[in-house]
């Protein structure tokens, strides 16, 4: 597949669009269907596509495995961090209302940040899963 020019070109054009769409789903999840999880999966599919056309090594150069691991952990840490932050600010764990001056604003900030965490972890893990699996297919 890696030698198919048409595929390469299409992928090159398609990937950014998919990523853009992922970002839309990520940040527009409050108003329309979607959210961190869906965005993460969509984002990962862009990388998947890239890896399928350009090969695993190229994809790994683009996003090294360590970055994925960090991303996966960081997502959970961001989510948990919001919870801890709300505890520090005097609320219960994950009580976003205390994050800003008004409860609504606080909720808003909280939801956006945790969705980001979700998206980060999901995207990283999905890509990581694919990479790890795909590496086993390659003949020795």
């Amino acid at each position, binding site marked *: 597949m890696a030698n198919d020019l048409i595929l390469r070109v299409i992928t090159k054009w398609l990937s950014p669009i998919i990523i853009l769409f992922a970002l839309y789903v990520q940040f527009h999840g409050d108003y329309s269907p979607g959210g961190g999880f869906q965005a993460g999966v969509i984002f990962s599919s862009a990388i998947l596509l890239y890896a399928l056309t350009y090969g695993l090594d190229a994809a790994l150069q683009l996003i090294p495995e360590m970055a994925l691991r960090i991303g996966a952990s960081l997502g959970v840490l961001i989510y948990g961090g919001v919870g801890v932050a709300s505890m520090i600010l005097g609320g219960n*764990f994950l009580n976003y209302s205390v994050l800003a001056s008004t409860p609504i604003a606080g909720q808003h900030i909280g939801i956006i940040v945790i969705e980001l965490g979700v998206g980060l972890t999901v995207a990283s893990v999905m890509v990581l899963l694919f990479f790890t699996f795909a590496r086993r297919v390659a003949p020795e």
Partner: protein
Amino acid sequence: MEQLTILLIVIPLMCAPITALIPSEKITWALTLIVSLISLAISFYILYEVIDGKHVIYELGGWRPPWGIEYKIDSLNAFVAVIVSGISALACLFAYRSVPSEIDKKTIPLFYAAFQLCLLGLLGISLTGDIFNLFVFLEISSLATYALISMGKHRKALTAAFSYLILGTIGATFFLIGVGFLFAASGSLNTADIASRFSSFEDMQLVETALIFMVMGIALKAAIFPLHSWLPNAYGQAPSAVSVFLSATATKVSIYVLLRILFDLYPVEYWVDMLLPQIMLSLGCAAVIYGSYRAWQQVEMKRLLAFSSVAQIGYMVIGLSMLNELGLIASIIHLFNHAVIKATLFIGAGILLYRANTTQLKSLRGLGKDMPWTFAAIALAGLSLIGVPGTVGFVTKWYLLEAAVEKGLWIVVATIVVGSVLAIAYVWKIVENLYFRSKRKIHIHDVSSGDDGVAKAPKTMTMALWIGAIMCIIFGLNTELSFQAASSAATALLER
């Protein structure tokens, strides 16, 4: 105080992702130990606060239940949390030398991360008051468990992990079906909320099916006979440290969930009408006999211990299905007692594995003479398993007996007697092979030969072993803490 309760979850939750990123095996180990110890301290503190029948409520996200998720912690929750985090610390101490000998160096940080996630899941299950949230934590712990078990040395570990994955997921999904049915009937997921409005929907067939599926799902996870088939392989093949941790906690936490479902979520009269106590009582008795008998037949120590777990779970089931306070106390206290005993025995098996590179009983012959201290601790824990007075095992059996006599259930008395005799038989089998049979040539483990010689078990391992063995005695003599926790938990369960 309230904020402390959630720290029990938050600390392992925040630590696990960090652990996964640190490449050093020593640091990740230390982190895991620290997390376990902090959890232990916190859960002890909570237990101390709630032991006289109070409870702590924590509303996550500041939302009132049933709209938000709530933690309602009474003595039972705290007691289970103490067991889980305490055993985790013990297993961790043991793991220091055991894990590097069994697991690839690069994988160790991930291993400890998964270990912490498993701890997190189990703690979550034991604290939450929301049945769906419980499912989520059940899955966290299960997924971590599958991965941990698959790290066993032998390839059988992979198949064991796979079949556990299949059966565990069936169990969890059954539980999810039950939750769904109950949700369809009640519109709520909060335990206390459902319980308080129970009479308004108790006539529905939905509720009945929900109970059956939840109980079946959890029985599968708790390895209650005859749904135990995954357990012997899983605990037998897992890396030693994992066997220690899981055998002492995972099934116990499931039994705890069963207690919650049967006593808190549903009114007792409801399932008495369904003949559930009789069914469970017979299954419990069957488990004791079958598990002990199979344990006796085994030729490999970890598998033997795993079958003995099947039997011991039977005792817990018997205790809770007798529906009197003493029986419940016996069950709850046995959660703790069996955890201590089994952890000690699996640590012992782990040390033997470390030394001899096998746990086949015939290959271990005579090893007890080279390692008298290890052998003595194993023997002590073995006596506990039998239920010799002065050990923790006795306390449980005594309360079970009292409960059975109170109810006039002679079949239970007979089961306990037969079970104990079989326990003598299988513990003797270990003791005999370790000490009485003449030595066979054993291959000494190659990893340990490098540093501190092959003749000794590493200090951390021996320490963990003896902490366990001494606990078997101390809590067999001074039952104040465990009894008080269990009896206040039992009272709370029966009050409803």
